[in-house]
């Protein structure tokens, strides 16, 4: 089984790559959104899943990537490639600049600090002239959903590949040690500050690139949509649902939850939200370690997996 696992991924990637040529435009558009949000989930996985620092503000990197690309293309008239790079640089700079002070905080304080950072950045953007203030920016138009789809797919593959590398590397072992017990990790020789900042920077990079691609695709951006706060929760939920700290968990969680949410959205307004809400509550209660762990756990202990989870953490 193990040997063939490595074949499964390229095959899946190839299958996904073919999708735009065999389905309708709506599906391609849904696909782009799903791929981008899966990238965000994977990026979050590095800082939240592996390192155990649950950021609730990764939207700040996404937003900076969005705006960086938009400003570069709409105001400086650069090419898309340069725009993406500019957006990525903004996102990474933010991670490096704020990472050090914020990563000193633990648990919920870190989560809230990131939330605050995202809100501040969003509010600041709304007041900056070059970013078009509240009105936003319009990028040059490029028709070609298929291209955006493939780009998004490449980005997701790159992000997943990076996570796969992290999972097997010394760097990854260090991140996991930090998550499990940061004091012990330090005493064992891990430069926790550097590792955490590095993890956040990786997350920022992919999030910013996702934002940049998204910006050029939808052509019009404004602070509310670029720094969309609901993205934060979605990427967190998707990763946790699929399996934090795993390679495929975030992708799985993102695809499954996007699909369901998409199906429900067409049924009745707001019901998708209700569904999300319930899923989260139930999932936290009975499958707190995500889908992948559920699959494995279910194989081992059947329905008792759920009951055990219900019992294990209660007062």
């Amino acid at each position, binding site marked *: 089984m193990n040997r063939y696992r490595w074949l499964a991924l390229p095959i899946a990637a190839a299958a996904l790559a073919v999708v735009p040529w065999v389905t309708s435009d709506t599906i391609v558009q849904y696909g782009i959104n799903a791929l981008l949000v899966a990238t965000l989930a994977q990026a979050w996985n590095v800082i939240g899943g592996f390192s155990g620092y649950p950021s609730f503000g990764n939207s700040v990197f996404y937003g900076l990537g969005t705006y960086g690309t938009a400003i570069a293309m709409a105001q400086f008239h650069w090419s898309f490639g340069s725009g993406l790079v500019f957006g990525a640089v903004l996102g990474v700079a933010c991670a490096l600049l704020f990472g050090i002070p914020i990563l000193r905080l633990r648990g919920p304080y870190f989560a809230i600090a990131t939330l605050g950072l995202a809100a501040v950045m969003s509010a600041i953007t709304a007041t900056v002239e070059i970013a078009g203030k509240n009105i936003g920016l319009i990028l040059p138009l490029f028709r070609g959903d298929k291209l955006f789809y493939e780009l998004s797919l490449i980005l997701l593959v790159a992000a997943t590949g990076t996570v796969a590398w992290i999972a097997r590397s010394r760097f990854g072992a260090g991140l996991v040690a930090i998550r499990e017990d940061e004091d012990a990790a330090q005493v064992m020789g891990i430069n926790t500050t550097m590792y955490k900042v590095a993890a956040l920077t990786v997350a920022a990079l992919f999030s910013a690139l996702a934002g940049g691609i998204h910006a050029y695709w939808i052509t019009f951006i404004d602070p509310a949509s670029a720094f969309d706060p609901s993205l934060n929760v979605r990427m967190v939920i998707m990763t946790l649902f699929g399996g934090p700290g795993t390679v495929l968990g975030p992708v799985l969680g993102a695809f499954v939850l996007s699909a369901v949410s998409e199906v429900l959205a067409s049924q009745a307004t707001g019901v998708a939200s209700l569904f999300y809400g319930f899923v989260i509550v139930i999932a936290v209660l009975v499958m707190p370690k995500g889908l992948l762990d559920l699959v494995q756990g279910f194989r081992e202990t059947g329905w008792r997996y759920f009951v055990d989870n219900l019992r294990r*953490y*209660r007062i």
Partner: protein
Amino acid sequence: MQLFGQILVNGILLGGLYGLMGLGMGLVWGVLKIVNLAHGALIMLGGYALYYLYTKAGIDPFLGLPLAMLAMFVLGYLLQTALLNLIVRAAQLNTLLLTFGLDVVFVYLAQLLFTADFRTINPPYAGKNVSISGVVVPYAQFGAFLVALVLAGLLFLVLEKTRTGRAIRATAQNLTAARLYGVNPKRIYAITFGAGAALAGAAGGLYGIVSQITPYIGVTLTAKSFVIAILGGLDKPLGVIGGGLILGIAEAMAALYLDPTYTDIISFGLLVVVLIARPAQLLGRA
């Protein structure tokens, strides 16, 4: 100078209400170590409870407040018993997520039951005000401010002087030791969360009097409650009121001297700065 005085008073009055919002969140956070992302939704629900008590049953808002608070207490008690008590010993992230899920459900239900229309609680004295040396003090805002202070004072007294309050504080500091003293953690946790919900509900009711409520006011208010609770030191009621005052005055000043669009930058900027600048104190509480 008069304008400054007016803005200052506005800020203080608003700050009292903010402090009340922070109280419930800080209490639950400090004692149960639960960061309640549904706090804003509870505020919102409290607002609607008081609204319907007033419009359907004709009960004066300030008199109906205890009823609304009671209803919210029951809701909170049930939530803790049925759901939150199940995950208290899990990673804190799980409580963040669970409460987030609850928030989503509550907002949806509110949207369904109450519609998205703006509601405001308008008792006859709502528009009236008193003028003190040129500074206008609206009755409603002043009443809200007083109620906030009274509730904060009550919470402080309950925590310090009553048996239940001592049990709550003991549980906050050391669960195992508290158990040895005969404290029933499930009950204490449920009571604490219920109290937090009741305080949120009160804040919501008062908010409905001085402003408008929709199903969506929760998100921003949750975020502000974070700031206020952290500024105030979580489960220290007097500190939290202070935190509320700081935020209220800061926002009022920002609205006056800068653009109103800067209020968000102020509140969240303050949050980030406080978190970065005081990590040692906060880490002690984590």
